């Protein structure tokens, strides 16, 4: 039994109307405590519906969602759904659109206060979260709307970390940031995963990030899970990914080209670091 379990879950939009549409069908999905799971699939494949189910923002049309020891089914009421949310934090796409308070500190403290923390407790947590995302104390009293895009993103992420979630869901968390901003934020999440054992679910189009960080991958297509496995298993089948309009990490593509020429790897490399480690001894042997 994983920390998150989806058991034969279906989700339909606007059921019983002419606008009815199936978003997810027959989903079976397991995430273990402390794991780093990537959810990939092209736009409209059902990824965002899936994460909303895990956070109890919507309930399944049929089947059962279990998060830690709380459940949601088609008959759950809003109180049951609220329970799911206690363990989960979501960083939505372009999360800076959730900012609304007068100061950075107040905005970050907003979540913990809603979940019953006192003002003092919430402020303390907020300060800790600011430090985590690399915002210095002089940002505390600034208006979030006077900050740069990258800084606003950090404030929004700190606002989610302040919920002290056991499970952190990230929906394209680096979209729109430049290279250095992307690297900093992705490293932060990896650090939370390794040092604090926070379970991470990453929704992304960026296969380099999947290769670099995830230890489990689910591939969604037309609302169904079509493949799952470790990144190495998923990316080994380049042909299949291309047919499903998904890309592979550049390293994988380069390694495949070498394989096509007749080279063989003992284990398929996924990142630049892995590829160079494998090649260096061979290249040196030649020299």
């Amino acid at each position, binding site marked *: 039994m994983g920390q998150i379990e989806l058991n034969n879950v279906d989700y339909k939009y606007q059921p019983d109307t002419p606008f009815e549409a199936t978003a997810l069908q027959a989903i079976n999905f397991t995430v273990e405590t402390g794991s780093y799971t990537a959810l990939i699939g092209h*736009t409209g494949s059902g990824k965002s519906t899936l994460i909303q189910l895990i956070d109890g923002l919507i309930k399944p049309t049929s089947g059962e969602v279990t998060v830690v020891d709380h459940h949601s089914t088609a008959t759950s009421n809003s109180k049951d759904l609220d329970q799911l949310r206690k363990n989960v934090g979501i960083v939505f796409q372009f999360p800076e659109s959730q900012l609304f308070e007068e100061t950075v500190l107040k905005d970050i403290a907003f979540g913990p206060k809603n979940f019953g923390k006192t003002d003092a407790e919430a402020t303390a947590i907020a300060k800790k979260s600011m430090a985590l995302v690399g915002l210095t104390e002089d940002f505390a009293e600034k208006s979030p709307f006077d900050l740069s895009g990258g800084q606003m993103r950090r404030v929004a992420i700190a606002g989610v970390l302040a919920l002290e979630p056991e499970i952190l869901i990230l929906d394209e968390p680096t979209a729109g940031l430049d*290279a250095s901003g992307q690297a900093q934020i992705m490293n932060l999440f990896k650090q939370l995963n390794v040092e604090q054992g926070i379970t991470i679910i990453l929704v992304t189009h960026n296969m380099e990030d999947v290769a670099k960080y995830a230890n489990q991958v689910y591939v969604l297509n037309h609302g169904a899970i079509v493949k799952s496995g470790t990144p190495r298993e998923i990316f080994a089948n380049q042909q299949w990914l291309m047919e499903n309009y998904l890309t592979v990490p550049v390293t994988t593509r380069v390694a495949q080209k070498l394989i096509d020429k007749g080279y063989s790897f003992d284990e398929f490399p996924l990142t630049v670091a892995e590829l160079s480690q494998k090649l260096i001894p061979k290249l040196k042997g030649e020299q």
Partner: protein
Amino acid sequence: MIEVKNITYSYPNSDSKALNDLSVTIQDQQWIALVGHNGSGKSTIARVIDGLVEGYQGEVTVNGMPLNDDTVWDIRDQIGFVFQNPDNQFVGATVQDDVAFGLENRNVPRPEMVERVQQALEVVGMSEFATREPSSLSGGQKQRVALAGAIALQPKILILDEATSMLDPQGRQEMLEILKQMKQRFELTIIMITHDLSETAMADRVLLMNHGQLVADAQPEKLFARTQVIKDNGLELPYSEQLKEQLAVAGIDLPREYMNEDRMVEWLWDKLN
């Protein structure tokens, strides 16, 4: 030809200079990639050229016309502009209405308008979506409609301000393919703003900006080899340079010039045998 001479500009309520004495000349039918990290001034200069920014110092000349209040609309007639956010530039209620918007503004007679809308939609492969509403389109499709809207005006210059940054990889790839075809077919000058160096490979010239100034002006392959300059200006190295960097640390001798992915594979294969 676009001539930008000694442009300096600060945004209202800002002390720092978004553009700092920037000068650059862009020849006809060049494909220019304008790169830099967020806040480097790359979008600002594009907006200056289209007359969308007021209160700067310096001079802009587009195809021999100095940019001022009298010429701004004539200059805009020659420039198609596609912005970053697919939703926030979609004016029409349906795809064909949106493509027609610029033509309506120029008082193009309806029979000609209908024809040009159809043609433009064909160019971007959106003909079958002509009557669809924006809410039923993906981001990539909306950006293709924006491209059609620009190309329907038969501009000489096309400016894309991070037009692919909010798209998924598939949408991004499709946009780049369409751009390549358009450049050929309509003999366009293209200015493409991006912070992703992998999108600049097809450019004739890459302009790297930082702090409102031009830091580098070179062909893509020449620039890619200047790894320190790329890193110092907050951009990610192209893949083969990342790999070279790792191999160099281990003491392996590497060619100095930039190699694209296939050449890199060739080189590795040669060395490995």
